[in-house]
């Protein structure tokens, strides 16, 4: 731990191809840049996010520009040389004493293909070994999603990451905008939709919601359709569960088959994984 300067953590996003890793990072940046920067400011303090290195500029501002143009971020190809994209979050408020801190988060966004085999993951996701927080993203609307495929992916990561109990696992279900229409989700999501970003005064309440949602999303894995008890039993004890919508609505396809947004993104609870990371870093 550094005595001076910002806290630093390394964050890895993990998921199968097309499960929304890149869009999640884009939505998270969008939410911090627009929504949280507005609601977490007060007379004396501001919350802000900025790109620390060229890769972060390219990934985060580049993707934000893409979303602004109502397009979706491009697919990530597999690389053996993933580059760190470092964001600095300034004025992160503490729910306990109101103190503001800054934190540097180093993100790695790689292709989902990297996680389709142990060999590929060892070759191209070496950074996983050093990650403090690993966000697993699952899109239950994808045909390759199941409790089995999810457990298989997490087992694979556990095989290449030493001492997973020292890491924070965050299991996030994406596409809440589509899933909330399904019966089983109405109860959980309906109360929170469309969601409001917290202010520094309401952070405590927001954390209570996050903890409640984490418990309920954990329970979701035990529903009869999934019965993923074994999956849950192997996760580290401090695993967090979230439900997010990185865009807030479902994109359509244009005449050329490319995904297009019908309006500007309005992410739903995409900040929850970020807040879990801030809390683990003891800055929020």
């Amino acid at each position, binding site marked *: 731990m550094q005595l001076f300067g910002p806290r630093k953590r390394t964050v890895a996003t993990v998921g199968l191809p*097309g499960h929304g890793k890149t869009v999640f990072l884009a939505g998270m940046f969008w939410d911090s840049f627009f929504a949280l920067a507005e609601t977490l400011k007060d007379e004396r303090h501001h919350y802000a996010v900025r790109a620390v290195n060229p890769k972060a500029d390219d990934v985060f501002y580049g993707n934000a520009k893409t979303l602004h143009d109502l397009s979706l971020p*491009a697919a990530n*190809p597999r*690389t*053996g040389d993933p580059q760190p994209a470092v964001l600095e979050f300034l004025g992160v408020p503490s729910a306990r004493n109101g103190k503001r801190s800054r934190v540097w988060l180093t993100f790695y966004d790689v292709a989902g293909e990297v996680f389709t085999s142990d060999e590929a993951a060892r070759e191209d996701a070496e950074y996983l070994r050093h990650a403090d927080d690993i966000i697993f993203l699952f899109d239950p609307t994808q045909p390759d999603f199941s409790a089995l495929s999810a457990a298989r992916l997490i087992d694979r990561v556990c095989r290449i990451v030493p001492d997973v109990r020292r890491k924070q696992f965050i299991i996030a279900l994406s596409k809440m905008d589509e899933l909330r229409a399904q019966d089983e989700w109405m109860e959980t999501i309906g109360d929170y939709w469309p969601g409001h970003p917290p202010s520094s005064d309401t952070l405590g309440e927001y954390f209570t919601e996050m903890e409640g949602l984490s418990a309920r999303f954990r329970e979701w894995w035990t529903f009869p359709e999934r019965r993923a008890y074994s999956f849950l039993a192997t996760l580290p004890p401090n695993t967090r569960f979230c439900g997010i919508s990185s865009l807030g609505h479902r994109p359509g396809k244009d005449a050329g088959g*490319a995904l297009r947004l019908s309006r500007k993104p309005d992410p739903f609870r995409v900040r929850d994984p970020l807040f879990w990371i801030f809390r683990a870093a003891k800055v929020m």
Partner: protein
Amino acid sequence: MPTLQALQHLYSSVERGYRPGHGRGFQTVAVSRELAGTEDLKLLERASFYAVRRRDVAPPVKEVYFKLPSGRVAIGRTVDWGTDPLGREGNYLAHHLILETGDFRAAGADAFAILDAAQPAAPGTDLTPQDLLPLELNVSPRLLIPPDPNTARADLLGILAYVLPRAEATTEVLLGDQPALRAWLRALFAALQLEERERATFCTHFYESANLRDLFRVAVVGSRDELSPKLEGCRIYDPGDVKPSGPIPGEPRTPYEQWLVEVVGKDRWEEVPLFHAVLSSLRELGSAARLGSLSPEARSAAWALEAERIIPAIQGDPELVRWFFETEEAPLAVAAEAAHKLLALSPAALCGEDPAACQETLAALREASKPRDWKGWLKKHRTSPHVQPFLSDIEPVWEKLRHKLPKRLGGK
């Protein structure tokens, strides 16, 4: 025009690829059956990586040439391929052609010519998972298209020109406009000799590819922002710098390296075809035809490369021998060495049977030779009619003085 058979490999993001169990995403879509399950295929998949920065409005075309574990060579092109099966932009298609080394040599080891002939990754490429049949290629002789001198730092690339033929393991990383640098590379490769071209593996779009550096002798990146810290130890050619950073290239060591610097740095590309024609003529026919048409630097380069072949090629031809000694001004040491070797021959073998026709040649030879070599040669062949006019060079001093005395005093 050689006809070649090339194995093929296609890689893209698809719903279903060559291996049914793989699922959706970037993967091998189709491949020649001979490559399935091989280490070559693993490397082809790794090398298929293609990333662009979000700010790249027009995605660059990536062209590569590299060696495979089996000893075969791969030549490929990767292009933007629109959307993936999910509708996300950023899909790409990598199309590799795989050749046996012998076939590649038969095509002049010219990867650019093969890319011209095959036009890989063309629009409309069939991405059905399948075993691909070998592709038949008619490769045209390489063409040298001089690059626009205003599109890059010619002096900096002049350093690349003499460093590249050396058998070094360093990757030379060029920064700048990628299409322009591709044109420079193509021209420079045309100036190299076959075995040097064969060693000169390259990648014309090297963004986020530092893990592949061992595959490429030359790599092009758009700007310093795109450089990975993992490229430490590479030689970086940044147009904003006076010299390349990284390992010190040293000075050109040979007349051939000096000539390459002249060609690239001073826009003398027109010399390249003639230079190679002369080299081919020497190597394949043992003929020194058109040697005299080369610039002094190119002649020196040709001599330095093919000294052993030039001597037999010019011997017996008084004109060529004379040309050699009269015009070979730049490499004095080379000329002296040549003279030394030529003086091992008899006058007739050196200049032909006609003594009258070779006097100017022998005069030139006398100028270029070390005095001791020349005199030794004259003594050895003093009875030859060719050398009679030069025998005064080996007369004793008193004999020479006698020549100068009037006859009435005993002079000749």
